[in-house]
C-alpha cells in the first residue's frame, strides 16, 4: 500500500498547461526525488499534493495521500491534513520563517494546531533536539541563527506532528556545500527513523544520487523517466536524462597560455566593515571581511576563487573592481591602482568588467538590450562610431541574434540574460573579466552552455578571468589555478587539478568531501 499515489495529474494555471499526466507513487519510508530544470513542474507537483496551488489553477487526475483524495477535499479538511499528515520544507529558510516570532513559538504553533494532546513547548523542544539544535533555546529569533540552523528549524516545524509524508522543495539549494551535506544527512535520518515518505524536489541530480531510492525526471510538465536510483543513473533510458546527467558533469577544454606578466596584483588587502554601534559611548566595532589577501593574476590566466557564503569573496570582488576602498594593502591592475580616492579612474576601469550571478537583477528592466550592453562604452574616451556593428557583433559572439537588440531583458530566459551579461562585459574587450557566481543561478543544461561559451571565448580572445564560485565542479573545469578562501583569508592556492586531487588544507578537503557527486558513469 503506497502512501502517496499521483495518477495522471494534469494542471493548468489561468489556461496555461503546467503539468500533463504526471503519475508517481511513494511508499512509507521511501525517498523519492523529483528532479528537473526550472519550469519542469517539479515544484508544482509538490504544491499540488499539498493543494497549495496558486489561484486560477485547475487540476485533474487523482492524488491519494494515505487514503485521502486530496483533489476532492475542501479547504478546512485540507487544513487539518497539512502539517499533520504531510509536512513541507522550503528552499529559502529565511523567508519560510516568520522573522518576528521565536523559533519555539513557530514550532509550537503546528503542535498546538494539530496535536492538542501534547504540550506545545515540550514537544517543540523535543523536535528541535531531534533536528540537532540541542543547544539553541526556544526563545531565539530566526535572524540569530545561521542558514543551516534555520533550515533545521523549518524541518522541525515540518516534522513536529510526526507526518507520514515529508515534502522537501529544494531544501539545500540556498545553503553552502558543507551545510548541505549535514541537512541531507538529517533528512535521510529522520525519514528512516519515523518511516516517513520523503519527496525531494531538487534540480541537482548529484544531491539525490546518494539518498533517493527512486528518481523521477520531469521536463515541461511531464515525467520523462522514473526508476530506481542506481539503475537510472547507470543506464538512463531517456535522451533528456542522459543530457541532464552529461550537463551536470560538464567538462570544457581550455586553451593553454604562455607565462605572462602579472595583470592584476592584490597585495596584503584588508577590508573592514564598520559594525553598527551597540552602545552609545563605546566606539563602533569593525568586521574584517578580507584579511591580508595577496595574489597575482597573470595575463591570459584563468583563476578560480572558491569559498562558502560569508567568506569574503564578494567583498574582495568589489574591492578589485574598485567600487569600495580598502583599509590596507593595494590592488593594482596593469600597475595602476584600481581605487582612486572615490573618483573612478576610467583608464583602469576600462580594462576590467564583471558578470554577476543574478541574471534577473543585473539589467535595468526599463532599458532595451542595445542600451544595456553598450553601457561600458561610457568608459571609452569617445563612443565608437560603429555602435550598431559592435552591438550585432557582441550579440552574435554570445550566441544571440542581432535582432535581439531592441528587446527588453524580461523577454529573455535566464540563460540568455547571462549571455547578455557576458556580451556587456566583453563589448569593450576588457583585459580582465570577473565572473561573480556567474553560473550559480542557472539550470545544469544552461550552465553547461554558458561554460562552453566561456571556453569558446577563451579560444577566440585569450580571455583573462577570475571565476568566483561556491560550486567546486564548475571551478574545476573552467580554471587553471584556484584559490580557496575561508573567513577572509586564502587558505590554499595552486593548480586546479592538484588542489582538487591532493588538497593540502583540511578545509579544502572538507569542502571537496561535502560536495555531492554523481556516481561515475559506467
Amino acid at each position, binding site marked *: 500500500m503506497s502512501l502517496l499515489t499521483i495518477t495522471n495529474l494534469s494542471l493548468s494555471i489561468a489556461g496555461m498547461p503546467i503539468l500533463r499526466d504526471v503519475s508517481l507513487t511513494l511508499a512509507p519510508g521511501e525517498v523519492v526525488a523529483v528532479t528537473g530544470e526550472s519550469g519542469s513542474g517539479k515544484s508544482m507537483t509538490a504544491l499540488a499534493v499539498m493543494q497549495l496551488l496558486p489561484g486560477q489553477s485547475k487540476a485533474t487526475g487523482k492524488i491519494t495521500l494515505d487514503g485521502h483524495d486530496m483533489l476532492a477535499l475542501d479547504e478546512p479538511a485540507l487544513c487539518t491534513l497539512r502539517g499533520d499528515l504531510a509536512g513541507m520544507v522550503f528552499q529559502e529558510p529565511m523567508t519560510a520563517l516568520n522573522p518576528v516570532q521565536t523559533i519555539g513559538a513557530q514550532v509550537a504553533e503546528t503542535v498546538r494546531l494539530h496535536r492538542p494532546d501534547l504540550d506545545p513547548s515540550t514537544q517543540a523542544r523535543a523536535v528541535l533536539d531531534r533536528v540537532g539544535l540541542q543547544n539553541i533555546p526556544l526563545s531565539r529569533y530566526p535572524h540569530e541563527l545561521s542558514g543551516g540552523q534555520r533550515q533545521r528549524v523549518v524541518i522541525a516545524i515540518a516534522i513536529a506532528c510526526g507526518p507520514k509524508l515529508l515534502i522537501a522543495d529544494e531544501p539545500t539549494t540556498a545553503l553552502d556545500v558543507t551545510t548541505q551535506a549535514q541537512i541531507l544527512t538529517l533528512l535521510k535520518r529522520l525519514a528512516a527513523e519515523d518511516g516517513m515518505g520523503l519527496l525531494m524536489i531538487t534540480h541537482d541530480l548529484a544531491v539525490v544520487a546518494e539518498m533517493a531510492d527512486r528518481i523521477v525526471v520531469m521536463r515541461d510538465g511531464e515525467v520523462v523517466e522514473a526508476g530506481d536510483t542506481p539503475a537510472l543513473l547507470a543506464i538512463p533510458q531517456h535522451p533528456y536524462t542522459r543530457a541532464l546527467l552529461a550537463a551536470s558533469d560538464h567538462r570544457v577544454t581550455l586553451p593553454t597560455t604562455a607565462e605572462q606578466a602579472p595583470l592584476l596584483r592584490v597585495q596584503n588587502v584588508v577590508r573592514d566593515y564598520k559594525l553598527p554601534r551597540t552602545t552609545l559611548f563605546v566606539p563602533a566595532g569593525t568586521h574584517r571581511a578580507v584579511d591580508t589577501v595577496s595574489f597575482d593574476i597573470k595575463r591570459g590566466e584563468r583563476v578560480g576563487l572558491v569559498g562558502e557564503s560569508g567568506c569574503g569573496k564578494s567583498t574582495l570582488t568589489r574591492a578589485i573592481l574598485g*567600487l569600495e576602498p580598502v583599509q590596507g594593502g593595494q590592488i593594482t591592475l596593469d600597475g595602476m591602482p584600481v581605487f582612486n580616492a572615490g573618483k*573612478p579612474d*576610467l583608464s583602469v576601469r576600462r580594462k576590467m568588467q564583471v558578470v554577476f550571478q543574478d541574471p534577473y537583477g543585473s539589467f535595468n528592466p526599463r532599458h532595451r538590450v542595445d542600451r544595456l550592453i553598450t553601457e561600458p562604452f*561610457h*568608459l571609452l574616451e569617445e563612443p565608437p562610431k560603429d555602435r550598431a556593428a559592435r552591438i550585432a557583433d557582441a550579440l552574435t559572439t554570445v550566441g544571440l541574434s542581432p535582432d535581439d537588440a531592441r528587446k527588453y531583458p524580461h523577454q529573455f530566459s535566464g540563460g540568455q540574460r547571462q549571455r547578455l551579461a557576458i556580451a556587456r562585459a566583453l563589448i569593450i574587450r576588457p583585459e580582465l573579466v570577473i565572473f561573480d557566481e556567474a553560473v550559480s543561478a542557472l539550470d545544469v543544461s544552461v550552465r553547461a552552455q554558458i561554460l562552453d561559451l566561456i571556453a569558446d571565448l577563451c579560444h577566440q580572445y585569450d580571455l583573462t578571468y577570475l571565476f568566483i564560485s561556491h560550486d567546486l565542479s564548475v571551478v574545476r573545469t573552467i580554471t587553471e589555478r584556484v584559490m580557496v578562501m575561508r573567513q577572509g583569508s586564502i587558505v590554499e592556492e595552486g593548480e586546479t587539478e592538484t588542489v582538487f586531487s591532493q588538497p593540502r588544507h583540511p578545509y579544502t578537503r572538507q569542502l571537496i568531501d561535502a560536495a555531492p557527486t554523481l556516481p561515475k558513469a559506467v
Partner: protein
Amino acid sequence: MNRTLILGGSLSALMVIAALMSFVWTPFDHGAMNIPEKLQIPNGTHWFGTDHFGRDMFSMIMVGARTSIAVACVAVGIGIGLGVPLGLWAAARQGGWVDEVIMRGNDLIFAFPSLVIAILITAVFGAGAVNAIIAIGIFNIPVFARVTRGGALPLWAREFILAARVSGKGAARISVEHILPNIANLLIVQATIQFSLGILAEAALSYVGLGAQPPTPSWGRMLADAQTLVSIAPHMALMPGFAIILTVLGLNLLGDGLRDALDPRLRVSRV
C-alpha cells in the same frame, strides 16, 4: 487598457476640459450677480443652480477648477522639482552626512502640521493664491524626497547598478539613467495623490478665507459660502463638494491605472 485608467483618466480629463473651456466659454458670467434668480435649485437654465447672489454655480465651478488645477499643479511641481533631486542625492550618499542633513530636514518639515503652517504663511505674507501655492508646495518636498529615497535605496543594491558603476558611471548619472526610470511609477502614483491632496488643501485654505481671494471663484470658498445656507439650499454645498470628490477620485484612479500601464513588464505580459 484597464477600466481604472479609463475611468480615472475621464474624470481627470473632464476637470481639465472644464477648466480650459472656462477661458473661452461659460454658460453665464461667473461673477455676474442676479439677485432675483438667487438660490435656484439645478434646472434647465442654471444646470447646477444658483447661489445666494444668483450667480450661476456651473460657471463658478468651471472657473474654480482653474484655480484648483493651477494651485495643485504648481505645488506638486515644487514638490517634485526639489524633492526628487534631494531624495536621489540622499539615496546616492546613503548613510553619509548629505543623507543625514536632507532626511533630518525632511523630518523637521514633517514635524509641523502642514495646514497650520500653510495658514501661518498666508497669515504672515497675506492671503492669496500664490502664497497658498508656496505653502502647499513646501510640504510636498519632503513627501517626494522620502518616496524617492525609499524607492532608490533598494535599487542601489541591485546588480545592474553595480554593473553601471563598473562601467565608470558616477552617482549623478546612475541616478538619472538607472534609478529615476525605475522609480517613475512610484513618483507618478505619488504625484497624483499629492495632486489630489493639493486640491483638497487649496479648498481647505480657501474655505477659511486664506486661498484665492474674491472675486476669483474657488471650490473651497463656495463651500464656505454655502455653509450658512445648507439647510435651505443644499445644492450650494453639494455641487462644489461633488466637484472636489470626483476630481480627487479621478486622480487617484488615474494614478493607479498609470502605474499598471507604465510598467514594461506588465505591458508585455498582457499582450
